[in-house]
């Protein structure tokens, strides 16, 4: 009896200690990788911004051109969020509920902005709306400026943020099903009533997440806005474009502190949403 337990222990024990050792190695490896890849650069940014003290950050960020750039970014982000809330909902609804030939292809196309380079997005818009663009005569006729102006930057940001709202709403809509909507319709509710009183309340968290993710992505857009907007100081310069210019002009404290503010904003938005989502689940 005693011999058996001893034998068993001698078999099990080494295996288990090897398991613990392997476990610790793997966890250590992952933490090391994440620390090197993500945490170290993040710490670098914080220390870089604070290298000349907090006073330098405040004075760098309160320059009128910096404030104007951040204001421009916020304005674009708000408009983009508004438009995507409306059209993203419609798009999600059509992709979930409607059936028509080519729907699967359309569904895949919605993810295209995720993979198409931001520079190419800006360039496409330039080909359409630029000086020699396809639509140039039409724009000249109505005296509308799109390239190197606000509308172009809004279009560019709309393109790159297209998937977020749709992809947040689609699974919620799919899970919600169609029965409650049908019940409302048979009880005489109009299409709008059904949407506002039945569908919308079921989707509300999807809306919240979609809006936050779209907003965060819009804050950080750089390449597309640079190409279509040109980064003209005081006119089409957003926060990211300011950072780019400040680095070029060797205004490091300004660049680093603007980068820190922008990074922190998106970070808090996305991580806050993620934590809230987990807490709610």
């Amino acid at each position, binding site marked *: 009896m005693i011999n058996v337990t001893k034998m068993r222990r001698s078999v099990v024990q080494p295996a288990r200690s090897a398991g613990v050792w392997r476990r610790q190695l793997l966890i250590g490896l992952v933490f090391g990788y994440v620390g090197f890849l993500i945490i170290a650069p993040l710490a670098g940014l914080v220390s870089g911004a604070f290298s000349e003290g907090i006073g330098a950050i405040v004075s760098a960020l309160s320059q009128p051109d910096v404030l104007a750039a951040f204001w421009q970014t916020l304005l674009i982000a708000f408009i983009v969020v508004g438009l995507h809330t409306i059209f993203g909902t419609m798009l999600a609804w059509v992709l979930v509920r409607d059936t028509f030939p080519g729907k699967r292809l359309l569904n895949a*196309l919605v993810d*295209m902005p995720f*993979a198409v*380079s931001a*520079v190419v997005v800006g360039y*496409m818009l330039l080909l359409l709306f630029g000086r020699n663009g*396809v639509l140039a005569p039409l724009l000249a006729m109505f005296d509308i400026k799109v390239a190197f102006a606000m509308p172009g930057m809004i279009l560019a940001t709309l393109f790159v943020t297209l998937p977020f709202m749709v992809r947040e709403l689609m699974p919620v809509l799919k899970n919600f099903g169609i029965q409650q909507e049908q019940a409302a319709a048979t009880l005489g509710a109009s299409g709008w009533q059904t949407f506002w009183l039945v569908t919308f309340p079921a989707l509300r968290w999807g809306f919240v997440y979609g809006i936050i993710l779209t907003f965060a992505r819009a804050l950080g857009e750089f390449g597309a806005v640079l190409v279509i907007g040109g980064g003209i100081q005081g006119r089409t310069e957003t926060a990211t474009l300011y950072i780019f210019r400040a680095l070029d002009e060797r205004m490091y404290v300004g660049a680093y502190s603007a980068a820190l503010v922008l990074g922190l904003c998106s970070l808090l938005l996305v991580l806050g949403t993620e934590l809230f989502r987990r807490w709610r689940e």
Partner: protein
Amino acid sequence: MTARPFLPAGLIKRIAWGRHSLRASVLAYLAVLLIIPLLVILRDGLQEGLTGFWQTISQPVAWHALTLTLWTSAVMVIINTVMGTLTAYVLVRYEFAGKALLNAIVDLPLAIPTLVTGVMLVILYGPQQALGGWLDHTLGWRIIFAPPGIILALLFITFPLVVRAVQPVLLNLDREQEYAAATLGAGPWTIFRRVTLPALALPMSSGALLSFARAIGEFGAIIIVAGNIPLYTQTAAVFVFGEVESENRAGASAMSIIMVAIALGLILGVEWLQQRQERKSVA
């Protein structure tokens, strides 16, 4: 569908009308935002015919930019797939202090604008900085304004993609097969390689493809980290930017077409893999 006959005829008509107008407006929105711009670039790039297109692309600067983009992205994909799968494995299978924190950190790169990522890497590894200068002088490793910087930036940006593709599949994986293999005497490495890994092949490949797609077009982080040195650190996206700036439409359009084609192929590939995974988990 079976509930349809209960609805009054007028209502059906109204719903059908609403459905068609909704479909039409959504298609119009997508056409303006997505499809027309893509077609315009296609038209512009193929204006000179396929030979003109090929001539533009095969010029040394363009060709180098394209191959540099492809090889740095490929190196990133290999490292990211291994480390992403490992991270997902550790997050799903082990309990340890700081697990929730690690899980939150994985999402960080999705939140940070890629331009800011570039700034962070330059602060850490730039030639004038403490760490970057030390690496350069003592080991001769140049990271910023060199290809390693590109790979590092791409690794940062794409880190969540493989982790978040593998994690849910691993979480739902039935462990009975692994236990069976263990009772049959297989070691942990054999179990992982012969039982767990094959089950993760689909999500790993869709995460890898997604990372690759994301990497091909990256601009913000790369222009900061690698600069714009033709024949050395100029990637495809930076090349397009330069051609647009110097108003060279032929070069910009040709490279854009290649990038869009790669993006489309990869996105369709990811879609196909995800559908296969869904069917597999339902079955």
